[in-house]
C-alpha cells in the first residue's frame, strides 16, 4: 500500500495526536457521557487506520508490529475477564469492588461522589479494557482485509 500525497501526510501527522486524545476521552468518561469502551475503541482504531491510509502499511508496521493487534486484543479481553473474576473477592462475579467505602450501601442514584471520573467503580477498568480490545481488533481486521490482492482476470474478449 503506497500512501497518499504530502498534503494528506502533513495533516495526518498534525491531527492524529488529537484523534487519539479524543478517543481516550470517550473511553475514560464512558460512565458519564455517551460513548464508553466500544465507541472510544473505534475512534482509536480509526486513528491508526488513517495513518495506514496516509503513510502506507510498511511505515505503520515500523511503529506497530505485525503481531501487536493480536497481542493487545487478547490482553484487553483477558483484562476484562480478570475484572470480572476479581469481583469474587467481594461477593459476586462482576461485583463492583471498587466502590469507595463511604458510599457502599447507600442508594446508588443519590450518593455524594457522583459525576466524577473515579466515581463508577469497576466501570472504568472495564471501559479501558474494552477500548484496548476494540482498537486492536478493528485495526487488525483492517490490516488483514487490506492485504487483499485481486485474482487475475479470467480470459475474455
Amino acid at each position, binding site marked *: 500500500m503506497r500512501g497518499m500525497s504530502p498534503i494528506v501526510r502533513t495533516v495526518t501527522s498534525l491531527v492524529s495526536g488529537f484523534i487519539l486524545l479524543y478517543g481516550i476521552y470517550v473511553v475514560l468518561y464512558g460512565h458519564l457521557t455517551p460513548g464508553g469502551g*466500544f465507541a472510544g475503541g473505534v475512534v482509536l482504531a480509526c486513528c491508526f487506520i488513517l495513518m495506514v491510509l496516509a503513510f502506507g502499511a510498511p511505515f505503520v508496521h515500523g511503529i506497530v508490529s505485525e503481531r501487536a493487534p493480536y497481542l493487545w486484543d487478547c490482553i484487553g479481553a483477558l483484562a476484562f475477564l480478570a475484572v470480572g473474576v476479581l469481583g469474587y473477592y467481594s461477593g459476586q462475579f462482576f461485583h463492583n469492588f471498587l466502590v469507595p467505602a463511604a458510599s457502599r450501601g447507600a442508594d446508588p*442514584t*443519590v450518593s455524594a461522589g*457522583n459525576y466524577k471520573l473515579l466515581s463508577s467503580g469497576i466501570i472504568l477498568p472495564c471501559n479501558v479494557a474494552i477500548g484496548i480490545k476494540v482498537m486492536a481488533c478493528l485495526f487488525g481486521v483492517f490490516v488483514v*482485509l487490506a492485504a*487483499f490482492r485481486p*485474482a487475475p*482476470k*479470467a480470459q475474455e474478449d
Partner: protein
Amino acid sequence: MTAPYVLTMVLLAIGIYAIACKRNLIKVVIGVMVAEYAVNLFLILLGYRTGGFAPIRTEAMDQAAGAAEAAKSFAAASVDPLPQALILTSIVIGLGVVALLAAMAIRLHEKYGTFDVSEMRKLQG
C-alpha cells in the same frame, strides 16, 4: 405512531430482497447489513417516549431538584435507556458479522475470480 414501525418492516423486506435476489456477493452483504439496521431501528423505536429527553443525568439536574426527586423525575420523563444498551450490543455483533462476510467475500474472489454467486456452484445435491 405506526409509521416508523412500518419503515422498519420495509427496511427488513428490502434486506431480505437483496439477500435472496441479488447475484453479486457484495450486494448480498449489503442486504444483511440493511436487515440488521432494520432490527436496530425497531428496538430504538420501542424505547421512545413522546416528549422525553435523552437519558443522560447531569449534576445540574441533581442540584436543581435535590438528588432523590431528580432521580424519580428522570425515570419518568426520559426515553427508555434499556433498548439503547441493547442496540449498542447488537451493532457490535453486526460489525463482527459484516467483517466476517467481507473477509469471506474477498477469499471467494481469490478462489473464483468473480463476485457472481451463480458462478460458485461447486456444491451440489
